[in-house]
């Protein structure tokens, strides 16, 4: 048998570690170990005789090295309580193992196995507008005219300042870029939408709306984008520019505009959702922005509204008023919610559909808090999420049965929440705090 030829010995801050080149190879070429053992650096000369005997000195924290070495060995991350997370992240950055740590930090998202990982305080004074999860575990919080950006370690990046214009919506187009829509300010060619860098908060470019070849100032509303790098936004211009604008995300050029049809509302939409399967855009304009609710599916290929629903003319009670809507392509339906968190469903395949309400919680009536936050909906891999007061409910299965409820006793009502990067972020309205919910990493045992 003899001595294993690929044995490697490290002396890290005075502690000796022995491992193998195979284990270190898991770190990849773009890491300290990858570079260290590249043939350019003659570290493995005389391998048979001295490799095991030669120790490589690294002047770093041995405790953290031990954790990271275990991560390379097992693929799992175990942080003892006596090691601050920040310290470990710094060490990972030194070795070039940040990505390894991030992917091992928490497991694939499952709404029924979430635990509260962190609460971040004191970053969002005043009423928060929106919280948006980024694709790799970061998030951004919009409030007033500021957008705070956090990376996956929840380190805050330089905030994005909208020059005192109110932010309406934000969306991550990738881990480095955020699009933000803001209110127009009368008398100045401001407002509209811009693409910002998440690392330093700088404006990369603005998205313009042109009407009859003239650039117009406008208010950008709800945002969405599709797999072809097209960006959609509801737009409210000074004169005729009411509708849904479409831009190329890469060039920033406007490529299309869907003008608002008479008697319908698009320009002030609260929610846009791109449907990959049908190549359509869901546009929902809801109470209280408008007295009535309008939900439609737009097909941009032939500029038509292929499906629509509205409560105009219906007798509206609070129980029948739609507060949020989301399309669920798997079941060809649209889910809506009223202010008592009753879910309702509509068939997408039939025109002139009516809402089938499944009344679950009449009990909520009369138990409303002083400052209620209206329910919001989200969908993630077959699980439906709805926020209500201070908790988020998870529904699943063909009949959308309540399976879990997430609740943090602190912070009051949830005004917005968002799922992405295998995390759920919930923004509270009463206190200045947002929560991060994660699924624990699987252990193989």
């Amino acid at each position, binding site marked *: 048998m003899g001595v294993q030829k690929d044995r490697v010995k490290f002396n890290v801050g005075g502690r000796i570690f022995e491992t193998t080149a195979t284990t270190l190879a898991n770190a990849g070429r773009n890491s*300290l170990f990858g570079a*260290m053992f590249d043939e*350019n*650096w003659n570290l493995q000369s005389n391998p048979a005789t001295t490799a095991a005997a030669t120790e490589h*000195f690294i*002047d770093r924290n041995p405790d953290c090295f031990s954790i990271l070495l275990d991560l390379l060995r097992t693929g799992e991350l175990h942080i003892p309580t006596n090691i601050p997370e920040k310290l470990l992240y710094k060490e990972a*950055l*030194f070795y*070039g193992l940040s990505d390894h740590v991030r992917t091992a930090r928490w497991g694939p998202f499952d709404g029924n196995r979430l635990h509260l990982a962190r609460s971040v305080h004191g970053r969002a004074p005043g009423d928060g507008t929106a919280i948006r999860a980024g694709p790799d575990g970061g998030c951004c919080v919009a409030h007033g005219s500021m957008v705070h950006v956090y990376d996956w370690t929840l380190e805050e990046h330089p905030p994005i300042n909208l020059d005192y214009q109110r932010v309406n919506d934000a969306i991550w187009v990738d881990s480095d870029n955020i699009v933000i829509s803001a209110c127009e300010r009368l008398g100045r060619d401001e407002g509209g939408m811009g693409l910002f860098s998440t690392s*330093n908060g700088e404006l990369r470019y603005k998205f313009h709306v042109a009407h009859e070849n003239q650039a117009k100032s406008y208010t950008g509303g709800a945002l969405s984008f599709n797999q072809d790098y097209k960006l959609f936004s509801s737009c409210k211009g000074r004169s005729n520019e009411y509708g849904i604008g479409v831009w190329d995300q890469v060039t920033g050029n406007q490529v299309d505009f869907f003008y608002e049809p008479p008697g319908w509302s698009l320009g002030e939409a609260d929610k846009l959702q791109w449907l990959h399967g049908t190549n359509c855009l869901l546009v929902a304009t809801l109470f209280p922005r408008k007295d009535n609710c309008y939900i439609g599916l737009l097909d941009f290929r032939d500029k038509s509204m292929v499906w629509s629903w509205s409560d105009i003319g219906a007798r509206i009670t609070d129980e029948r008023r739609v507060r949020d809507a989301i399309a669920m392509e798997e079941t060809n339906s649209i889910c809506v919610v009223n202010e008592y968190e009753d879910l309702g469903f509509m068939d997408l395949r039939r025109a002139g559909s009516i809402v089938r309400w499944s009344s679950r919680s009449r009990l909520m009536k009369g138990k409303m808090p002083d400052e209620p936050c209206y329910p919001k909906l989200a969908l993630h891999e077959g699980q439906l999420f709805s926020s209500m007061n201070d908790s988020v409910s998870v529904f699943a299965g063909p009949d959308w049965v309540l399976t879990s409820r997430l609740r943090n006793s602190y912070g009051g009502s949830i005004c917005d929440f968002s799922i992405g990067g295998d995390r759920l972020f919930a923004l509270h309205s009463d206190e200045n705090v947002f929560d991060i919910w994660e699924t624990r990493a699987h252990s193989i045992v």
Partner: protein
Amino acid sequence: MSSGHKKRNFQIEAFKHKVVVDPKYAEKTWKILDHAIHEIYNHNASGLSFEELYRNAYNMVLHKFGEKLYSGLVSTMTLHLQTMSKSIESAHGGLFLEELNTKWSDHNKALQMIRDILMYMDRTFIPSTHKTPVHELGLNLWRDNVIHSDKIQTRLLNTLLELILRERMGEVINRGLMRNIIKMLMDLGPSVYQDDFEKPFLEVSADFYRAESQEFIECSDCGDYLKKAERRLNEEIERVSHYLDAKSEAKITNVVEKEMVANHMLRLVHMDNSGLVKMLLDDKLEDLGRMYTLFKRVPIGLPTIRDVLTSHIRNTGKQLVTDPEKSKNPVEFVEALLDKKDKYDKIIASSFSNDKTFQNALSSSFEYFINLNPRSPEYISLFVDDKLRKGLKGVKEEDIEIMLDKVMMLFRYLQEKDVFEKYYKQHLAKRLLSGKTVSDDAERSLIVKLKTECGYQFTSKLEGMFTDMKTSQDTMQGFYSAHGGDLASGPTLVVQVLTTGSWPTQSSISCNLPSELLTLCEKFRSYYLGTHTGRRLSWQTNMGTADLRATFGNGQKYELNVSTYQMCVLMLFNNSDCLSYREIEQATEIISSDLKRCLQSLACVKGKNVLRKEPMSKEIGEDDVFSVNDKFTSKLRKVKIGTVVAQKESEPEKQETRQRVEEDRKPQIEAAVVRIMKSRRVLDHNNIIAEVTKQLQPRFLANPSEIKKRIESLIERDFLERDNVDRRLYRYLA
């Protein structure tokens, strides 16, 4: 934030202070890294400690000396690249590229190692300050200090172009080295490759091929020139695949195409004795194919070929159809057309890759010249007639189909399809009545083809003719089973009852039948009218045939196969030996032109002259006298005596057919006008002419003046009226 609450921990602040303030710390650390970079470039890296260098670079970034580290890197690397540049400059002649290549791979290796050391800076400091990453920086510095240095830039370009020129002249060059150098230019970014190599390369290539093509075209014929051009094109494509950027292929082939093909297209096509026309005449399929593939690559290349092809086919076709020699024999005429079509079909299939536009050009050319000869419809029908009479004996079924398909193809080109129909009907009638048709299947197959081409209407009458033939057989059976007994001794009568309208009617002046037959015919008439009510029968004696048994002077017996007219004449000689022309005419009442032809065939054809004529001459005179030729002999017992008929129509007959066609067209034009006006209600003159022409196109090309006449006739008959205000408008009167 949390540290804000722990301000009392002075120790940490003091510690931080010490390190950051030390001014020599940064200088010392950079010295170490700077030295390492030198060692790396000097191939002396084995003594370096990677861990130490990595840590030092990390610390510099951590302690906010990232800027110093980065600028130090830029200046050190620049220094080394300038040294490298000097050494490359001083390389002699052929070693220049070798040296450049060696230094390039050294730099690449060094760059990789430097990047390893500075990995932390690359990951954190550079993105947050929007600086150029280390690898890209290394390439940019190489570009600016080496490739773009005064003494290298033009020398490099000239060396590369020189090598390519030498390869074009047939020398073998080091392609591996070329590939490495070009790859280097590509690695430095598309703009470097394009500006420093590709653009000048394309310019020089254009000059080269411009000169070469000029030289080639002066001393080669078209076929050879095309071969050379094709070889050059393939060479360039091969060159790209060996050592250029794949994206250059389209550009360099474009240059070759423009200089060698596009600029000389007209000259090549029209070259005397070797141009396109000559290739077509000699069926040079390979050369034609080469011309097609080369010309296809350049704009208006194919139209150039197509135009020459079209005018050549039109000219030769026109010569063919207007050649009076060819017109003498309709079968040869059509065969020549078919040969021509076969020839060009083959050329288009094998050389022009079955290009649709070429096929269309061929069709339109045929359409053009076939219709130049007004007798084409007649000839095509005669060709079919010839084939179906005799030409198909012993031919396989598939071949018949092929032949019929070819005929249909010619038929498609005809503008006056109704004229063809007229002739076809006449010829078919003759075939059916004389029982001459070889293959019933072939006949029907052609009718099916005509039907699919022109519709039910076109063939309904033709099909009616077949039905009549069949019904007549049944009728004859019925007749003989009814009268079987009392007819046994007399002559046998076979009647074909033809429906008026289905058959080409001819003015039916009946002749006097011999008395032996007359009674029989009367019997048939009463039988037929007895079984069918409301019908009228008239005898078409001009179309029948008869078999006669004749005994001549020497007791020799023959069976004579003759026409009905000829029978009538011969039967007269049962009762008298000698008859004059006038006596015969009186007895038979056959119109003189037919009678003359009939007598001519009985008395003047050598070997078949059953009658003798006084005086002996070729022509029949009004005063001639006829008697039975006692000395008639023949090797065969059955003698077929044909009628002297012009196979082609004679001039007056042609006129007559023409007139009939014109007559038939009138109701069709009127019907079209009424159909169109019924749907449009109001239409102006020009539009109605256009629409009528379009609607009738599948059958014939309507003459505008004839349409105008028909419209006027319709106005007279109150189908239409002119608009009161605008006289050019017509209104439909319901």
